[in-house]
């Protein structure tokens, strides 16, 4: 009896899993509305910081400050954010925390950024989610 129940459960699980996979596949391919946000790996052209990677480096150099000289913290804050179709930044999230004060500094840096050049799919501007590691390491 138990074996039968287990077998039934296994079959049910497989059916449920396959439905979930099919649902996920549909939900990935059916995203076409104006509000869609694409992960950076799914776009034809990545959003870019004005001035390219050199401009981004200069911006970080000018605006990122060591937030507290006294606290012994060392490492990387990983932040994600969305570059909207307008080039504006929204939804800045700390994906990997280092320390509260340093996380806040990293988020503030991203929020201070000027408009980005937008990402594109089929030459149409789209909103794109990007990840940026902010390094707090003294060398």
């Amino acid at each position, binding site marked *: 009896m138990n074996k039968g129940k287990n077998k039934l459960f296994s079959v049910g699980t497989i059916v449920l899993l396959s439905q979930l996979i099919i649902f996920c596949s549909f939900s990935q391919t059916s995203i076409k509305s104006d509000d869609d946000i694409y992960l950076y790996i799914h776009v034809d052209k990545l959003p870019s910081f004005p001035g390219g990677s050199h401009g981004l480096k200069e911006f970080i*150099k000018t605006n990122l400050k060591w937030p507290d*000289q*006294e*606290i*012994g913290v060392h490492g990387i804050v990983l932040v994600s954010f969305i570059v909207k179709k307008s080039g504006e930044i929204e939804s800045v999230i700390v994906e990997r925390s*280092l*320390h509260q004060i340093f996380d806040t500094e990293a988020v503030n840096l991203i929020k201070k950024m000027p408009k980005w050049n937008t990402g594109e799919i089929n030459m149409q501007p789209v909103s794109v989610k990007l990840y940026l590691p902010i*390094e*707090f390491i003294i060398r």
Partner: protein
Amino acid sequence: MGEPQIGSLGPTTGEEGFLGIMQIPGKLSDALNSPDDKIKITINSGLSELGQAQLMSHELYGHALLFSRGEPHKHSVVSDESGGFKEGNRALSKQILKSIAETTKNYEQRKK
């Protein structure tokens, strides 16, 4: 030991986060002020053994040593040309790098 090599002032183990802090006598903020006339050093116990040893030498033979000599003992972190950070307090930087290198050498020798 010779001149310290250029490198990170943190542990060589790759560990990240809050690493350690030195509290000194005086009238500083709660986090930095020692409750008595002693220097107190706190190291993150979640670090590896080598990480803890290196941080101890960073705090003790870097910050605390310079403090006890009456020399500038605080970090003075400034942006460098590459967009990263460098230590503006050269004496502290030199002392920490030297201490971490020596601690690492001692640790490895004891492990043999």
